[in-house]
């Protein structure tokens, strides 16, 4: 336990001069040997990153400006980009992706936080409840998604049974373009909320109890305590999780792909990544797929930059 406190704070102050002294004392031969060993340890990971991360990253940008003509790869200029901008599915996919992200934030961001707040109040059964919420995260997505497919079935599905017992009208769920996206979001929330809930729970346990006591002395009720103590105290983790969740949900693929076969009724669950998949693996149009990928990457990058800027300015 003493290790981090001993080595960490000392490093920036003393590390540099000590290193330099060692470097000047170190003979050329020894420095060379030290570096060869060090790079020897690195080589496996560097090769893998090079082949499967860095090279594809560069290639993505090159592909976006190339196309395939009679089996030969030629430069395409901006034609891939103009092709995707003129595809009506492009705008539909972006609308759906934003709708999905919005719904997923309403459910997938708020629900885990609310659940964490409730679980944190209990003095009993916490370990059991924590295991429960995390269970779906450990299920293979194919299993959980197909389960939901059966539950959503308008005929014999479990969900319409439940609605019926409460006297509510049956829904078409995945089969209607009005409710398909919402159905996908509900399934995705169930599948993924465990991790966020546990992270919030850990953050809530770090809030000093005196803050609540002080708020009570000021006469704050339950909701004012949440608003003035709980949320500000977990702000950092909340905004980090919000950003991560937006970036993850904008890339949603598996849930709509397995639930509705991708596009869904009247393209109502066609997302951007779904469209990338269609361009690349249905139409073998890698250029357009890469161009759309670059657009998605830029949108996410701009979004993250704006988010971090806003987050920082609201902090001051």
């Amino acid at each position: 336990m003493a290790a981090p406190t001993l080595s960490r704070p000392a490093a920036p102050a003393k590390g540099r001069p000590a290193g330099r002294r060692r470097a000047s004392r170190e003979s050329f031969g020894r420095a060379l040997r030290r570096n060869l060993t060090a790079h020897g340890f690195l080589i496996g990971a560097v090769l893998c990153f090079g082949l499967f991360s860095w090279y594809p990253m560069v290639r993505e940008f090159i592909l976006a400006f190339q196309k395939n003509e009679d089996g030969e790869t030629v430069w395409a200029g901006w034609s891939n980009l103009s092709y995707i901008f003129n595809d009506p599915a492009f705008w539909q996919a972006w609308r759906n992706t934003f709708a999905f992200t919005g719904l997923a934030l309403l459910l997938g961001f708020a629900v885990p936080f609310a659940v964490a707040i409730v679980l944190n109040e209990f003095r009993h059964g916490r370990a059991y409840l924590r295991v429960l919420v995390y269970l779906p995260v450990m299920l293979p997505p194919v299993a959980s998604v197909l389960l939901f497919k059966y539950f959503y079935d308008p005929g014999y599905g479990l969900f319409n049974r439940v609605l019926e017992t409460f006297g509510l009208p049956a829904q078409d769920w995945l089969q209607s373009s009005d409710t398909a996206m919402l159905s996908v979001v509900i399934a995705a929330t169930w599948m993924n909320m465990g991790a966020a809930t546990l992270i919030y729970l850990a953050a809530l346990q770090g809030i000093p109890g005196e803050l609540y006591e002080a708020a009570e002395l000021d006469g704050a009720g339950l909701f004012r305590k949440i608003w003035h103590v709980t949320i500000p105290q977990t702000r950092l983790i909340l905004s980090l999780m919000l950003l991560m969740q937006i970036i993850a949900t904008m890339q949603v693929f598996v849930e709509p792909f397995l639930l509705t076969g991708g596009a869904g009724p009247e393209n109502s669950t066609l997302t951007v990544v779904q469209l990338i998949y269609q361009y690349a693996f249905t139409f073998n149009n890698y250029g357009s797929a890469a161009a759309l990928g670059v657009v998605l990457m830029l949108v996410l990058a701009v979004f993250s930059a704006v988010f971090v800027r806003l987050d920082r300015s609201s902090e001051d």
Partner: protein
Amino acid sequence: MAESQRTLISPAVLARPRGKALYWGAFALVMVVFTLAFIGPLYWMATSGLKSSQEFAQTPPTLVPGEVRPENYSEAWSVLDLAQLLLNTCVYAFGALAFMLVFDVAAAYSLSKLRPVLGKAILGAMLATLMIPATVLVVPQYLTVLDVPLVERNLINSPWVIWLPAVTNAFNIFLLKRFFDSIPRELMDAAAMDGASPMRTLRSIVLPMSRPILGVVSIFAVVAVWKDFLWPMLTLPDPSKQTLNVGIYSLGASVPENQLIAALAIASVPTLVIFLVFQRNIMHGLTAGSLKG
């Protein structure tokens, strides 16, 4: 710890009779709702796999299977060739784990303790990959494994296509490096003074001290391969080479529904067992990685 902690609702309120009643009421409600919401689907899956086809399609559905047919499970096992799929998935998952551990631990150790020239730049380039949305890279990655540069091999349908990309997990390298950073320099220097080579130091000092973090990254690596869908679907099209997920998905339409659900139940068991056995490590790793990171 739970008892001593002061949370949103004050202990004074909870001590009153009305507070007590509300607490136990809310507690009972949450226990029931959560059990239904999270165990319910698993129960439905396990029991639907035991029902006959007629009983499965029947409305309203039966809560307990009237006629228990465990042979659904054995039929699903042989029809979908689950033994082969399970074996494939194990080979992919544990191979990926082995490559990830060897290469990422070595890299993190080198970056943390051996400090080579350009080490910072290499770490930066690795961490930069975290900024690129993963799904955007699927297309160029797919084209790359069709014809890997340098070795000029097509990796489609070979286990390498799962194993090698599993190494490119910058988050694991980051977690490992940060852990290695906290091992005091003096220990390493003492080992070097005694004439230990870097490899010896890694084996007898760094690795034994790093068991907790190695456990966490290992569990997440295995589970990630087990759960992955899009990448294995694209790169392992040969039915005899597929993973459990992809195999069940692609053959799912051709078997009766009760058998399909039995197959899903079988496919869910390994990760659920991993979770129940290692839940402490998993939950610890989850919060350690995100809160302090």
